């Protein structure tokens, strides 16, 4: 459900960027989302299309790409990917349900995902945030920092 908030955040950041750059219409916004948040695309797009009305993004479409995280254990040096911790992740999802902690707060990943090799929580996760990858304005593409 917090997909509505995510949509609002995306819109606000692009609106601000458009204002700073004196642009009055945006065609497309591409965002990247960590895959382990399992954000629901349908809801996100519905929210985006509802909330964009009356803004410079009124005629824009939203493209979403999922970023697969890479994990690095600072305790033993092991690097691992999402597949290697899917079991653990699914346990958390089962315990907490839809709004499970990493869905809402991806920065919590090290608190819930242990290194499969040494069991440590001392894990670096990259990337772990929602970012604007590209904004298309009247046929030209730019990047909002």
């Amino acid at each position, binding site marked *: *459900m*917090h997909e*509505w*908030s*995510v949509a*609002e*955040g*995306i819109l*606000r*950041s692009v609106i*601000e*960027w458009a204002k700073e750059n004196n642009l009055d219409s945006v065609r497309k916004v591409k*965002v990247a989302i960590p895959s382990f948040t399992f954000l629901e695309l349908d809801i996100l797009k519905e*929210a985006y299309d509802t909330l964009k009305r009356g803004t410079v993004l009124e005629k824009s479409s939203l493209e979403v790409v999922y970023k697969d995280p890479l994990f690095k254990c*600072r305790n033993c040096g092991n690097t691992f990917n999402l597949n290697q911790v899917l079991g653990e992740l699914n346990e958390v999802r089962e315990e*907490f349900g839809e*709004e499970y*902690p990493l869905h*809402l*707060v*991806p*920065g*919590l*990943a*090290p*608190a819930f995902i242990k290194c499969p090799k040494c069991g440590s*929580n*001392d*894990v*670096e*996760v990259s990337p*772990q*945030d*929602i*970012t*604007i990858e590209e904004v298309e304005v009247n046929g030209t593409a730019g990047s*909002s*920092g």
Partner: protein
Amino acid sequence: MEPLEALARTKLSNKRVIAVMSAKGGVGKSIISALLSLSFSSSRQTTLIDLDIHTMASTKLFGLEGKVHEVNKKGIVPFSFGKLGVISLGGIVKDRYVVLPGSNTRDVMQSLIAYSDVGEIIVFDLPPGLGDEVLLLEHLTDFTPIVVTIPSKVSVKVVEYLLRYLKERGKRPVLVVNMAYFDCNGKKARPFGGMDYVKNVSEKY
């Protein structure tokens, strides 16, 4: 700007934002945040956001252990006590401990703020230290600092770091002295010492 940052800023803009802070731990930040936000809520819609992600004291003070926040279109629904809403990471992780590298705390705090459904007055309960919680709040908004200390030498000296920092950043903090005395059969006992250190520092800042 990142989406979550933009959202967090929006949530705090045009609000009265108060940060209860201290650099020192165990001086009463959480209890004072709780009482303060309760008192504001007698007249205005108030939100207490607990930024101490390791202790999540507000869930204990309000008897919310194990309770989970609902999430709707407006974001995280605060636990509600009349006009007071309480938001805590405890309501997201239930009663699990949160062990976390320091590099992640900023993102976690920012998510909490960004997704909160907030009222007109926002009170932040800060963790001890002088790190991301202060830097992030400074970045997001112009808050009013309430600095808490106890009378002890160690606490006052640590709080002085924070006062110096806030002064350099152009802020004018309110200093609260907690646990100043204990009622021992009508006489004031002072387990954490007299008010000398406090007097000294409050004259300086």
